[in-house]
């Protein structure tokens, strides 16, 4: 290294409108096969400040497996249908809707809350955004949501933006509102 390297992080830039031929890949949103016994559908819509769908967003999820273990397996880009890598990537469709097929992550520590980490990219969004999708209260360890430091720090309306909703078919619904009414809580999770 030279004497005084510039170690200020490289700034981000928007993913732009033309990532569709480059970043999405086959079965990118399928962390497990639909036939997997624990498979769950995680889906929702990305919305802008007018409540209109954002048709050119890209979402990535990163999560533990059902037992709360973090996968160290490679192969996310070439799904073999058997290896759980914990990573998924999916572009939204023309009406702003995304879908992942995954499992519900276990807590990564005793009594910890169960959540999926999400990274959001979109045309018009000048830098990535991080957030968390917490499983509904009924699926959490006893008291986990109440003791979660992030959720506990939020007013009820903001806290609600981070909780997935269980639909009638057992799927998990989670909309992402970039701005305005019900704006999703986005996170600064950088190490301090």
């Amino acid at each position, binding site marked *: 290294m030279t004497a005084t390297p510039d170690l200020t992080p490289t*700034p981000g830039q928007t993913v732009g409108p*033309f990532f569709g031929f480059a970043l999405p890949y086959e079965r990118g949103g399928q962390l497990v096969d639909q036939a997997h016994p624990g498979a769950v559908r995680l889906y929702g819509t990305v919305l802008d400040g007018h409540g*209109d769908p954002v048709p050119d967003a890209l979402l990535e999820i990163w999560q533990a497996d059902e037992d709360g273990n973090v996968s160290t397996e490679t192969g996310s880009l*070439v799904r073999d249908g058997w290896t759980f890598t914990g*990573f998924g990537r999916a572009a939204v469709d023309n009406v702003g809707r995304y879908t992942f097929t995954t499992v519900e992550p276990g807590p990564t520590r005793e009594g910890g809350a169960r959540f999926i980490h999400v990274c959001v990219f979109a045309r018009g969004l000048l830098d*990535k955004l991080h957030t968390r999708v917490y499983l509904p209260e009924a699926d959490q360890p006893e008291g986990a949501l109440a003791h979660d430091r992030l959720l506990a720090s939020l007013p009820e309306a903001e806290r609600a933006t981070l909780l997935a909703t269980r639909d009638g078919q057992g799927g998990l619904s989670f909309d992402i509102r970039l*701005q305005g009414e019900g704006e999703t809580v986005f996170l600064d999770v950088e190490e301090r």
Partner: protein
Amino acid sequence: MEESFDHAHVVTSSDSATSTQNEMTAQIEALHRAYREGVAAGARVEDKPRIDFAPYRSSVLRHPTKDLRHADPETIELTSPAFGTRDVHPLEADLTIQHGGEPIGERMIVTGRVVDGSGRPLAGQLVEIWQANASGRYVHKRDQHPAPLDPNFSGVGRCLTDADGNYSFTTIRPGPYPWKNHHNAWRPAHIHFSLFGTAFTQRLVTQMYFPGDPLFPLDPIYQAIVDEDARRRLVATYDHDVTRHEWCTGYRWDIVLSGRGRTLFENDLGADHDDDHENGDHR
């Protein structure tokens, strides 16, 4: 041709098509002036792009209005997906050999080193790039720029960094291209980059630019980084040591991911402790 498929936003930014470059540049300059005056008066230096930057019309309805909420990273956020030779074939780093013939344009190598915020090289990291061809046209169905597609160029590449954190791509220099942010809007030539790091919080999607581009002052996306030093971090440098005799030109662009990453966090608690001592305890 950003807005052509997005009618909802054509309505909300109906003034954009009639805004001139001069109006747009004036808006950018006013925001930059306010930033510089703020810094001179003690405001913090902004290393990142503004997410609320009105000259980039599409950002108006797509930026959160609330401050990011700090959360202590949990285990999953201190780790990152693993990518390996299973995911990426070595030939994917050469964008000039993906088809039957040679792509049109200036062949070049783009190389650089990926380090974390403590200067540690990040080995085995997935680097993904995508770009327009030499004419400024993307292989994307929504790109309607009437410039030729190149049957020998897709503009998508991937590689893994080596043991010293180095990546290298062989490609052709992308052209600038028009978009519909305002009347006669053109993006400076750029290559889109995507990187992961050892903690998912380090995730980076950005754009690399070329030195001396005359479109820099006119571009609301590049100028959304209001700090001049921070903007410069996105500009590659021409490197004659990378240039190959009678073959191609060479550019170097190093990348710094935020934070110290997992390796230091788990294995170097001694060093970590010293670090905390120097910087003060901010937990």
